[in-house]
């Protein structure tokens, strides 16, 4: 007998299933991940940058990327934004007469655009085939074209608009800065930091870079101070550890302290990034998003794991549904006769 009681039972089972299937439980919440202690990164100081684009050229060379022409004469590499073939670009903020560097009004400023190597990367969380991965020691967010299916979810997910797909190719890959990890084995660090003439782009351990950034923020604007170039040695670095890296040491020089905003971009955004930035012009005006300390990967994975962690809930719901369906399914066969 198809009775009202059966129907109510069905409603309860289905309703409970639907309700539990969507209510996130705090028990499964996953916190925002933090930077690995030995994580590597870059410090970009917009007040030291002179906009020479040497880092852009070096990045192209280090990653075997072709030039991109947007001007009439096709003489120079002139990418308009980062792309599948341009992993690093210096962008410019301009206002009014553009008279003063690092001034928001009637001024201009530069900003480096490249992967931030997030502590809790959205791209890694999004990628269905583990093509984007975060190294547990160096924290470098790497890309593996042999795994990638080209779905571009990482592109949509990254809050900095960093991974880019090569739409011009039938076998396009995702292009993005991997902190020059392919050069690390031979002792070469990031090409962009290696060639930067002013030390505006500096390579090192993120923790050391963060300390250096805070040191600069604590100084008085206009004061003279020593700023390092190339690679920032770790505090108390042993000669053996230092010997891992090629390139001249002690490239520091005297520079004037910039008129910084009191904020190290990347210290807390989305749980922190391994690439840090200093600027005198509002970070949103130079193209960096305003992000909360909680990463969206944490929100997304909390929902995902609440719903599917250990597949316990789906299996429980399935058991309920099976039970109800078994009572309600009557074979289509005409000879069985109806019963409703």
């Amino acid at each position, binding site marked *: 007998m198809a009775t009202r009681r059966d129907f109510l039972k069905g409603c309860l089972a289905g309703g409970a299933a639907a309700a539990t299937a969507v209510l996130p439980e705090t028990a499964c919440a996953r916190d925002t991940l933090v930077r690995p202690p030995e994580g590597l990164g870059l410090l970009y100081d917009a007040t030291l940058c002179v906009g020479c684009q040497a880092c852009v050229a070096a990045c192209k060379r280090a990653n075997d990327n072709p030039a991109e022409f947007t001007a009439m004469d096709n003489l120079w590499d002139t990418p308009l*934004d980062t792309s599948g073939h341009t992993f690093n670009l210096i962008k410019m903020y301009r206002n009014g007469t553009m008279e003063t560097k690092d001034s928001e009004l009637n001024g201009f400023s530069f900003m480096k655009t490249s992967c931030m190597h997030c502590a809790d990367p959205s791209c890694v969380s999004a990628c269905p085939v583990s093509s984007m991965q975060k190294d547990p020691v160096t924290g470098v967010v790497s890309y593996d074209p042999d795994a990638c299916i080209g779905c571009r979810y990482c592109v949509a997910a990254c809050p900095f608009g960093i991974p880019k797909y090569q739409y011009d190719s039938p076998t396009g890959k995702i292009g993005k800065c991997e902190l020059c990890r392919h050069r690390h084995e031979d002792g070469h660090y990031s090409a962009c930091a290696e060639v930067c003439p002013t030390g505006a782009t500096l390579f090192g351990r993120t923790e050391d870079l963060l300390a250096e950034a805070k040191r600069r923020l604590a100084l008085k604007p206009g004061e003279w101070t020593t700023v390092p170039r190339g690679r920032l040695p770790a505090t108390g670095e042993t000669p053996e550890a230092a010997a891992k890296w090629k390139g001249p040491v002690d490239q520091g020089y005297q520079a004037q302290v910039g008129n910084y905003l009191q904020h190290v971009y990347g210290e807390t955004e989305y749980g922190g990034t391994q690439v840090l930035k200093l600027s005198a012009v509002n970070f949103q005006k130079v193209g960096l998003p305003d992000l909360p300390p909680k990463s969206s990967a944490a929100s997304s994975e909390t929902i995902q794991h609440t719903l599917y962690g250990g597949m316990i809930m789906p299996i429980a719901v399935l058991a309920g549904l099976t039970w109800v369906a078994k009572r309600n399914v009557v074979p289509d066969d005409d000879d069985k006769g109806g019963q409703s």
Partner: protein
Amino acid sequence: MSAHHPAAPVGGKLFNLPVMICSVLIAAMLAILFVRFIFGLGAVTNLNDGYPWGIWVVFDVVIGSAFACGGFSVAMLVYIFNRGHYHPLVRPALLASLFGYTLAGVGVLFDLGRWWNFWHILWPTYANPNSVMFEVAVCISAYVMVMWIEFSPVFMEQWGLKVQKQKLEKVLFFFIALGTLLPMMHQSSLGTMLVVMGPQVNPLWQTPIVPLLYLLSAIVIGYGVVLFESCVAASAYRRQIEMHLLQPMAKIMLGVLAVFMLIRFGDLVVRGALGHALSPSLEAFFFWLETACFAAPFLIVGTPGARRNPARLFLAGCAIMMGGILLRINGFLIGYDTGLGVDHGWNYFPSIAEMIVTLGMFAIEVLAYIVITRRFPVLAREGAAH
């Protein structure tokens, strides 16, 4: 309780105008896909670095699969809530779902930039269980298989495979349960895909309860599609409309829709996001358009009298489908902005080629529906029982 309604092939000619039109669209689609696979995505689509996902993902997969929820919505009604009298709606709804999903699965391949690796998504060594996309892909693949199993009695009936059919029917309840769970899982996850995009998605569509909203709306769309499809099938085949079923179903649909609307607005108020709907922006305009489509069915078929009018049922079905389209387009395209337009104001509007491919996929669905309903026992036999 289901035995009163034997289904039967509609019969009739296979070559008529709709079939011709569908064939032309499918041919055009194949030509465009040829170019896409030789020269790359950029050659035929307007996709760009600011809008990596276009209508092939948002329309063909996110919306297409929601439209294919008719099978799941009706099966849930019949088998889970034990409303056996809706049984005649199961097969046609399931058929539409079967093709909707199978094609969504195939359509994904066109959009994958590295499509030859597609199998990685189902391969354990590559799997990333943290990825919502991974979950969606696994569920959709499993659901497509389950639906073919659920639908196979139709073929067995036609080909006289009685023994096999009886064997299958002994375990069919399990597949029906699975066929209810899987779409619940991935329809909610289609919404969750937005969560990792964080502040790039407008707060009107970026919410932690987005899985619930997508699930409820998918169920409502499922009923809307059944209304739409029953009316179209009835008029195309000059059959009687199954008003005795559609009327009460429309009422159930309104109930779920009311719950959806309450949660939708409750969430906006609680998160303090309603302000975004009052600003003079494109996003706000589309938000109200979406809301109007979801609210319209209450006006169109809100009273029992109105529900007796087939034209109104048809319109209500259309409004629901429109609302569902907008909820998804708004989240993934209109309300999506990288916010990094300092040097580049990114824009996306689908190219003609992209639209033809989407139309071509739709044409395959229509064509398959015509061929199968004419040759296999899907629709209830005319005049039987009622």
